[in-house]
């Protein structure tokens, strides 16, 4: 699982290859001697980046006084975590619920919106698009203070649905932009042909265009999931009830519980539970992860 396969992909689109590509790696002894310092240096950097993750995973199952795993190796810390307050099951459920709802809403809204912006001309089209992108320019904190008041008046105080709605709104600039360029990169003839054949604009979208923009959908979904799963600030402000906390909030609160003594072991286990889905998704979908930044950086 390396990025080599991913990066070959954009390389192929760029006709001119950097000159360094052309010189084949030297296999002579002198060449090896020249390259060894580079390997040592870059290897050390890779170790620095990987060490914290590896250390946390190992430490979460290794013995340490004052934690759920006092002697011998095992999953004691995870047991402590599982029984913390409402139980990790509840917090996992809350996080999965918020992330799932956010992904579904983001996909739905940005698909319809991207289709509208790419294929239709209507009054206010550019204004609405610019307004959507303007969300990026307003600080998170600036919006969350009034959103706290607004959600209270809408009856969504202390509600996971409210958190998911707010997180969806914060995803809209990226996802609408991404879906718009995805639809625009598909030749118009495709949906026009479908409409000539008697499709309505909606069935052209559903049956013809949606399969064609699948890579865009995966990228948008991945980013919405990572953002919602990891978000800390929105639930911190919008959720008061400890049974409704999402996982990052619960793990963060876990630290100060037992008379000020921090259970480091349970915190390590919490970090592993939080990080594992993200790392697995990242490794499986890193091509889409890279693509998301490519589109943003090239066209933005």
């Amino acid at each position, binding site marked *: 699982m390396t990025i080599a396969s991913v990066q070959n992909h954009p390389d192929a689109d760029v006709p001119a290859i950097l000159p360094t590509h052309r010189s084949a790696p030297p296999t002579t002894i002198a060449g090896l001697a020249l390259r060894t310092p580079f390997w040592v240096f*870059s290897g050390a950097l890779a170790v620095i980046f990987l060490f914290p993750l590896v250390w946390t995973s190992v430490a979460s199952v290794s013995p340490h006084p004052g934690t759920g795993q006092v002697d011998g190796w095992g999953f004691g810390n995870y047991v402590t975590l599982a029984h913390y307050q409402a139980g990790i099951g509840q917090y996992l459920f809350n996080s999965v619920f918020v992330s799932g709802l956010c992904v579904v809403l983001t996909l*739905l809204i940005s698909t319809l919106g991207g289709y*509208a912006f790419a294929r239709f001309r209507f009054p206010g089209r550019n204004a609405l698009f610019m307004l959507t992108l303007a969300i990026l320019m307003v600080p998170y904190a600036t919006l969350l*203070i009034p959103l706290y008041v607004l959600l209270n008046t809408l009856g969504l105080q202390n509600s996971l649905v409210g958190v998911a709605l707010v997180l969806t709104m914060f995803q809209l600039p990226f996802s609408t932009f991404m879906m718009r360029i995805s639809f625009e990169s598909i030749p118009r003839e495709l949906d026009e042909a479908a409409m000539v054949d008697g499709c309505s*604009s909606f069935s052209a979208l559903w049956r013809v265009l949606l399969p064609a923009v699948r890579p865009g959908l995966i990228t948008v979904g991945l980013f919405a999931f990572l953002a919602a799963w990891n978000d800390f600030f929105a639930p*911190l402000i919008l959720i008061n009830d400890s049974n409704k906390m999402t996982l990052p909030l619960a793990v963060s609160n876990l630290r100060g519980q037992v008379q000020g003594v921090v259970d*480091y*072991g349970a915190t390590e286990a919490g970090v592993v539970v*939080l990080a594992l889905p993200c790392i697995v998704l990242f490794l499986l979908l*890193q091509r889409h992860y890279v693509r998301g930044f490519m589109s943003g950086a090239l066209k933005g």
Partner: protein
Amino acid sequence: MTVQTATPAPPRTTRRTGHRLRGWAYASPTALFVLVLFVVPLALVFRMSASKWPLLSGDQGINFPDNFTAAVDNRFFVDSVVFTLKYTILATVLLIALGLGLALMVQESSRWKGFLRTSFLVPSALGLASASLLFYVLYSPLAGPLAPFMERMGWSFLGSPDAALASTLFLIVWRYAGFYMLLMLVGLQSIPGDIYEAARMDGANRWHTFSKITIPLLKPTLALTTILCVTGSLLAFEQFYILTKGGPDNSTITVVQLIYSVAFQGQNDLGVAAALSVLVLAALVVINVVQLRAFRGSDES
């Protein structure tokens, strides 16, 4: 709009109206979200900043400049602004330099470099909160891997203001360097290879190639990454809220942390918090306009 070929086309105007209506229909969920969850709160924050608005009792009527004077007079206001600016400059310089350095290092395709790229990128899949919790344990003088060392030296990662800032910067570099490397790689790929070829034929050395070709042609990417990094760092919250908790001695309080604590911890004054938020928004707009001007200005020269 169905079959158009066989039947005569309907009058242009109705067809256009239908087209517009359908466009609006598809865009309406976006419009609804943007209106209710972005435009209305944005208007509300301005109103709150001009009203007496305690957390529990809600709107108590207009008190225009009072919230702003209270915000500026807050005893942590100046300290938090200074600290946030200091942190922003350090984080931006570190991340842009390291992002570019890593990108140059792993630019070419090979198995080893692919592995390096993945190693640098994996931390960016973690949330900032998870990464902060991870380093909270890693830096701990009780449970961290360097605990024995810290005990012997009588020193700890989060013990003094400078050490706490440096430790947080390390966490941020660990979490974001790969992300900035990725953006730099995208920028580097847009530089045509024949320019490098031509420079080599002219006998340019590595440093010349880098300073006369790579850096000028990378300017759009450098502008984008700098603006991203400055904006993100000015709004720093999680890393300090979780890792340093503003300490030691309130030395690491950022502006967003101040907003949070004014609103929800103790003071419970949403009006003053809203006034602070408005100030942050205004500062951010000014800073970004200045940056855009600066990058554009140096483009023309």
